[in-house]
């Protein structure tokens, strides 16, 4: 009984330290493989006002589209596959579907479609599922994954016909769908947009100025500061949680990790929506150039959050929400072109690459 009550949900934190000079650094791979990004927040210490280039980069995130009541079989439409999936990269995610209750759909830029279904929906659909890696725990979600570049999934192929019949007649799924395309705009997504009700959205940008912010002393060495406490502190700043509490306070005892200094001013900027990894990459380059030019700041922090209801995590690995399900990563950039990257996932996930 006691052991059950003190059970800790499984969490996984991968910390990487490398340099931009190192040819083998995998930062771009990590950024590119995290397909579905909800929010990016940037913390600039010792900064009073938004630098114009960064401001432009944040406002330059491309818009995304929300299609209402899209029947899922339309994602197998031949025109859509030709114009959007096989040319450029299309990102699509079902919206408003809770990943542990409703069927969820994700479309990835490498041409993979992932359907996360519950038992009844899977039994109705009639398409084989991917083998689960986590066989110790019998989860109740069934993941159907197809790759449009396979020979059987070309239009007219056996697998394609079977999935199409399944989605049209046996299990007519209809979801609200968030979709964006890189590089194109509405032209690539025309086969879908022309037939259904859609609306265009711009990612929303917000900026907050903080004064006298206690900050931990951060260096590029991984051992200097415990990553968990640094991430906790970063999250607290982002959530506007006060870290100036005494240990005897009744309400909260959260403090900034030691050793610490005080920054006279700091800027917290965030953009949220359905964000493209390519643009996040561009933002990272802008942050690097800002850090090179700035005299006061010695580090900059960037945090990228994934969607809670996404059926996939890094590189299309399966994901489920049981205890703590958010995938996110934090990047700390330092003056000497080094960086620390922290990748976090919750229970039942595979280790990020």
């Amino acid at each position: 009984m006691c052991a059950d009550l003190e059970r800790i949900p499984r969490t996984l934190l991968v910390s990487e330290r490398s340099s931009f000079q190192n040819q083998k650094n995998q930062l771009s791979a990590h950024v590119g493989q995290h397909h579905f990004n909800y929010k990016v927040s940037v913390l600039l210490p010792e900064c009073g006002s938004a630098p114009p280039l960064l401001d432009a980069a944040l406002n330059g995130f491309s818009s995304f589209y929300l299609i209402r009541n899209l029947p899922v079989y339309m994602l197998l439409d031949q025109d859509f596959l030709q114009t959007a999936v096989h040319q450029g990269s299309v990102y699509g995610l079902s919206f408003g579907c809770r990943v542990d209750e409703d069927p969820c759909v994700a479309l990835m830029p490498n041409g993979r479609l992932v359907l996360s279904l519950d038992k009844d929906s899977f039994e109705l659909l009639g398409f084989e599922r991917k083998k689960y890696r986590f066989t110790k725990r019998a989860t109740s979600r069934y993941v159907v994954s197809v790759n449009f570049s396979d020979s059987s999934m070309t239009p007219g192929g056996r697998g394609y016909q079977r999935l199409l019949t399944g989605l049209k007649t046996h299990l007519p799924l209809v979801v609200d769908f968030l979709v964006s395309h890189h590089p194109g705009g509405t032209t690539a997504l025309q086969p879908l947009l022309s037939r259904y009700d859609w609306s265009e959205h711009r990612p929303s940008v917000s900026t907050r100025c903080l004064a006298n912010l206690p900050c931990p002393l951060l260096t590029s060495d991984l051992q200097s500061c415990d990553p968990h406490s640094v991430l906790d502190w970063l999250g607290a700043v982002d959530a506007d949680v006060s870290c100036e509490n005494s240990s005897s306070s009744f309400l909260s005892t959260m403090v900034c990790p030691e050793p610490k200094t005080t920054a006279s001013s700091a800027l917290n900027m965030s953009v949220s929506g359905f964000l493209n990894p390519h643009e996040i990459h561009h933002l990272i380059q802008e942050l690097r150039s800002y850090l090179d030019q700035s005299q006061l700041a010695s580090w900059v922090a960037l945090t990228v959050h994934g969607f809670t209801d996404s059926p996939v995590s890094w590189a299309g690995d399966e994901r489920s929400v049981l205890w703590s399900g958010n995938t996110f990563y934090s990047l700390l950039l330092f003056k000497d072109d080094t960086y620390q990257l922290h990748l976090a996932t919750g229970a039942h996930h595979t280790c990020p690459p």
Partner: protein
Amino acid sequence: MDEALVQTVIPPHLSKVLGVESQSRSKAEAFTQAFLENSVPWNTRQDLKAMLTHKAVILNYARTTQDQDKRSRKKAKGLNAHQKRAMKVFHIRPEHQRYELFLPLHNLWRQYIIDLCGGLKASCNPQFVQQKLVKADFHGAIITVVRSKCPSYVGTTGILVQEFKHVFKIITKDDKLKVIPKRNSVFAVEINGFVSHIYGNRFEQRAGERSAKKFKVRGTIDL
């Protein structure tokens, strides 16, 4: 009685009492002969001589006792499973595996079900139809697999050709004979707008035995 007594003359004192006259001997004989001939039935009068010349030969009919005992002990025994498989009694030959051949069977089945449920009208109570269907025979019905734990069975449709204890044998439109296990599948049968779902897990009996079985009412059935 002495024949002579019959042929004597009636005494004279009695002839007055009776009111009859005795005739002479020759006349009496002629009268008796004529009376007998009239009394005897007509056809036997003809065949009389033929019948008398025939001699009926009666053959001995009774059999020996050993054969009789054997017959009473020997009942009609069916074939056992080994013999059935050897003789391929339930095997459908490839030239018979054609969808069109079974369409008349399907029509027969439709008629049978409609008669069983007393005419399937739109106003019929589904409960009543369901109770009848549970005991009905499904040979010849067009069934579809609607849900299954094994995804490759979902969507298969065809006419039910043979029903065994654990398995349905159906023939699809492409003239393919498919064997679908009953377990972990849900089948749908449609007649005249009534769609009935059969849960295979609860249906694993031989067709003949099912008509006598009582089905318990269960809450939800999960595959």
